[in-house]
């Protein structure tokens, strides 16, 4: 069960896996995620479904190594099996023909989850402008796939090593200013700070209710049974794993959300350090 069918390394720290998971593939929709465990002593880690095929029974995940669990996942090889892989979880993106332009922003690892959303929106007849950004050229993933899924593509890097030297918020701001109501909807998926500033930009242009962000709080079960993932949206507590992960950006309390993500930072750091030391001893890195 849950065999790694393909493994690709897309950058220093970003990997793409194709996992054998026919049940998940059959039900998966854009915007949803899975929870996996590498081995029996592992933790449950949520990852967005980047792509899937119901016919062929596979699910694609794209992840960045940020701590112990993702490092361990990155060390698994083709044909290895994951201990657990459950999904699809969360509410699917609400996609329709909005009758105009839709701006889809993906930052860093957030470029992977925007792919199925952009593709579906284009299929539905929207004019899709995708904006993808990364710190530097090396970290920019999926450019060709996103181009194919969009009508227009804007590429930015923080350091100008590729595409335009800008933050993703800049083209967003320009488009909102020049095209106004012609832009019907905005999706922004990426690091929390990016989603926060995209939302700020939208709000400043009076469009706080038209921007959708995908929140990635710390989760445990991912099915609504623990409340670890609670976020404040429109003044109400919501469980991101069942009520989201997508929410209207203008309603999200980003500061609380970002604070909650840092809850275990000390323990995570230590776990990563001792795991790296262990790998070094075993001669695996």
């Amino acid at each position, binding site marked *: 069960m849950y065999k790694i069918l393909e493994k690709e390394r897309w950058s220093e720290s970003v990997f793409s896996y194709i996992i054998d998971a026919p049940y998940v593939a059959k039900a998966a929709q854009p915007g949803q995620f899975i929870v996996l465990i590498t081995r029996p002593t592992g933790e449950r880690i949520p990852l967005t479904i980047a792509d899937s095929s119901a016919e062929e029974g596979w699910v694609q995940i794209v992840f960045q190594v940020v701590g112990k669990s993702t490092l361990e996942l990155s060390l698994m090889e083709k044909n290895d099996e994951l201990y657990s892989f*459950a*999904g699809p979880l969360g509410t699917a993106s609400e996609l329709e023909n909005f009758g105009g332009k839709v701006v889809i922003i993906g930052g860093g690892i957030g470029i992977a989850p925007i792919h199925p959303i952009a593709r579906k929106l284009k299929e539905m007849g929207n004019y899709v402008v995708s904006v993808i950004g990364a710190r530097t050229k090396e970290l920019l993933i999926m450019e060709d796939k996103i181009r194919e899924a969009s009508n227009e593509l804007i590429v930015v890097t923080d350091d100008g090593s590729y595409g335009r030297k800008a933050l993703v918020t800049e083209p967003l701001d320009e488009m909102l200013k020049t095209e106004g109501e012609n832009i019907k909807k905005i999706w922004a998926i990426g690091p929390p700070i990016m989603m926060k500033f995209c939302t700020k930009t939208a709000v400043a242009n009076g469009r706080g209710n038209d921007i959708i962000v995908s929140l990635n709080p710390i989760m*445990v079960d991912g*099915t609504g*049974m623990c*409340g670890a993932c609670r976020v404040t949206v429109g003044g109400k507590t919501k469980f991101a794993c069942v009520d989201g992960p997508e929410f209207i950006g203008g309603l999200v309390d980003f500061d*609380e959300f970002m604070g*909650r993500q840092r809850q275990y930072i000390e323990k995570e750091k*230590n*776990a990563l350090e001792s795991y790296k030391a262990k790998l070094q001893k075993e001669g695996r890195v």
Partner: protein
Amino acid sequence: MAERIKAAEKFKRNRVPMPEQPPEKRVKNFDEVPLGYTLEDAIEEAQRCLQCKPAACIEGCPADVHIPQFIDKVIDEDLEGAFKEIKITNGLPAVCGRVCPQEEQCEEKCVMNKKGKPIAIGRLERYVADWAREHGVGDEKPQKSSQPKKIAIVGSGPAGLACATDLAKLGYDVTIYEALHKPGGVLIYGIPEFRLPKSIVDYEINKIKELGVKIITNYIIGLTESVDSLIEKYDAVFLGNGAGAPRFMGIPGENLNGVYSASEFLTRSNLMRAFDFPKYDTPINVGKRVAVIGGGNVAMDAVRTAKRLGAEDAIIVYRRSRTEIPARAEEIEHAEAEGIQFELLTNPVRVIGDENGNVKGLECLRMELGEPDESGRRRPIPIEGSNFVLDVDNVIIAIGQSANPIVARSATGVETNKWGYFVADEETGHTTHPKVWAGGDIVTGAATVILAVGAGKKAAESINKYLEEQG
């Protein structure tokens, strides 16, 4: 074989005490607290039973366990016979012997309770079930029918497991779908190791698998597949998905770092084994002072877990008085012995955070008891101006669970009530859909293991009847 003693002697003797790990030792480990009777203890306790006819104790047992009958066999050292006697009506005796609120059920009704010395039925049940496990005594393998009808069960808690067991014994082809990566429901993710060792739950689940029941984990009904689809593929469906969604209080500061629902706290520790971090990867944060809000079994489990995870002060904050605490008597006694503090007649109004968004205090109000409310318990009324702050690093909220709507949303034609629980016939578990039954916490709201087991069994019987009628 031990002798039957005279009635006068029975009244003279006291309950045989349960050997336990001493409190100062056990707060440093997660091993089981009660150590279990020896054979001698069990016989001595069994000898006290009056063998009443009719037996008052059975009336108090939601599963109608044949209590005096099994106790009598213990005196004869016929432990296999005793085990079979219990198993006729209760599929999970090793679990129930440990977690049932006996003092409100069989032991409350026991005639010996008039003198305050009820027979220790739970301890005897546990002894017999543990003996059977250690000696590999189990169920007989069911006969495989050639064209079995197929039944799907949603959830592998006590309700689902009980339903599956009975249907498998009748020769049906049974598949359980479980959302988590491990089966067992609350027995695995909720109730801590020191009260119910997970090896016991794993053993019971293996026995059920040996009956031919298939358990598919990581499969979330309502997301991976809908109930509607199960209804199409199977001859009957049983919904036993429990009431797992945590409730919060709605007070300010509840989303600060360091505030947990009891479900999250216990899931991290029990299911994910955060108590063994970093061997296990899931972390948990427990500071020096921890407040747990609530007074049920869940609250006791959370507070005793916090103590074991290193909290110097672990405090129960409960809005009524000692007499109203709903947890099992044994849990309260164990908690007190372990140095758990009780802030009774106290209700939290606000969680206070520091500049980094971490909990640093819990503001509370003192309460007094007024007139009895609908539940018959005296209603707590806040005393104005009695606000005070408990300095704490963590707040754990254990004020109850509710229905998770995921399953119900995917079940067309299966009615729910206003709280989202399935509407089911009390005697049969039949829902408003002809092919669907439901039982356990997802029908009653958070209740007990034995009621869930009973509901699973009743549904199995009704499903069997229905499928036989269908031919």
